[in-house]
């Protein structure tokens, strides 16, 4: 059975400074971030209120409704979800690049990546909680393009979810537009397994 399709829009995105520094290229953390980079990060962060429009869309389906890909094996139900921060941030990045503001573009791009990731983390938590309410055991979050789940499996997700309702579409090469979008699944199992997660995670 396919469950109803639902949307989440009330996200409060927080940033992990360390991850942003890694994303913009600080392979190891320097003692201090020097000027002008330090101010640029602070300034780009201030723009975010207007640039982030986070939303996610999900549905919870029975195993029978899946395409029976081995990664769904033994799952009682599967939650699939698409998350995005919207297109506005990317438009701003484009403007910055056109103005030869490459460092700002790099920083804003990292902030956008981190925000998209954060929307996925929060959606994931909500879905894991739903599994528990159904007395099922949620697996970790997995995305097409990682490990055994080929990126072309994006097509399966987009067949089942009207992601256009949150403004996300899939291109022929399986890219999501807007770029700062994430898709994932969580398997819900009847019994606890090595791969299911602990309470509160």
């Amino acid at each position, binding site marked *: 059975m396919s469950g109803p399709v639902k949307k989440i829009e009330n996200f409060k995105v927080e940033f992990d400074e360390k991850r942003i520094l890694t994303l*913009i*290229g*600080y*392979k*190891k953390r*320097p003692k201090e971030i*020097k000027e*002008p*980079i330090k101010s*640029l990060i602070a300034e780009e962060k201030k723009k975010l209120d207007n640039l982030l429009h986070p939303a996610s869309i999900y549905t919870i389906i029975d195993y029978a409704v899946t395409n029976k890909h081995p990664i769904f094996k033994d799952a009682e139900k599967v939650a699939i979800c698409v998350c995005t921060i919207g297109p506005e941030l990317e438009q701003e*990045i484009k403007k910055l*690049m056109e103005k*030869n*503001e*490459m*460092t700002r*573009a*790099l*920083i804003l*791009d990292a902030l956008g990546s981190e925000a998209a990731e954060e929307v996925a983390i929060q959606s994931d938590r909500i879905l894991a909680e739903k599994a528990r309410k159904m007395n099922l055991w949620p697996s970790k979050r997995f995305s097409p*393009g990682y490990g055994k789940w*080929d*990126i*072309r499996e994006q097509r399966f997700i987009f067949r089942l979810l009207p992601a256009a309702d949150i403004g996300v579409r899939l*291109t*022929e*090469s*399986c*890219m999501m*537009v807007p*770029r700062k979008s994430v898709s994932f699944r969580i398997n819900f199992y009847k019994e606890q397994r090595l791969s299911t997660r602990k309470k509160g995670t």
Partner: protein
Amino acid sequence: MSTQEILARMEKAMVEGNKEEAEALAKEATKQRLDLNEVIDKVYVPGIQKVGDLWEKGEYFLPELITSAECVKGTMSVLQPEIEKSLISAKSKGKAVIRTVKGDIHDIGKNLVASMLAANGFQVVDLGADVKLEEFIEIAEAENTDFICLSALLTTTKLAQKKVIEILRKKTSEAGVKFWWEVHR
């Protein structure tokens, strides 16, 4: 300001990534009618070298490299028209054609590479993102390019890189073309 002083401050601004200062000094240099090719040789070449050394030492990271590249681009936009007016062509280390492959829209990494190449004295023809393969090869040939740079981030779009390489191998088996592409694991 003496010539020496301008040159020293320009190099400092570039290494520290101070764009406003670098551009102001470039304007000053043109106003004082300094030999602009000498400015490039004495400021940019060692400046970008210094930035590279700091990167190697682990003191500079990608954002610092990019900021310096921005300085170079900013000041070159001041110097270039003057250099062209004086009919001396700036030396180029080679010409690169760069694009993000068709089907992929990731262009930030590609743009970073393009600005870094430009800052290091290469002529860059940037064809943007999502360019058709045939068109790209045609332009690369017409431009008589030394380097072809391709960017793709997804398994699905990386196939386009393979295709370009195959086509070029066939076309230029004896021409000694260099392949340079970014592979993601």
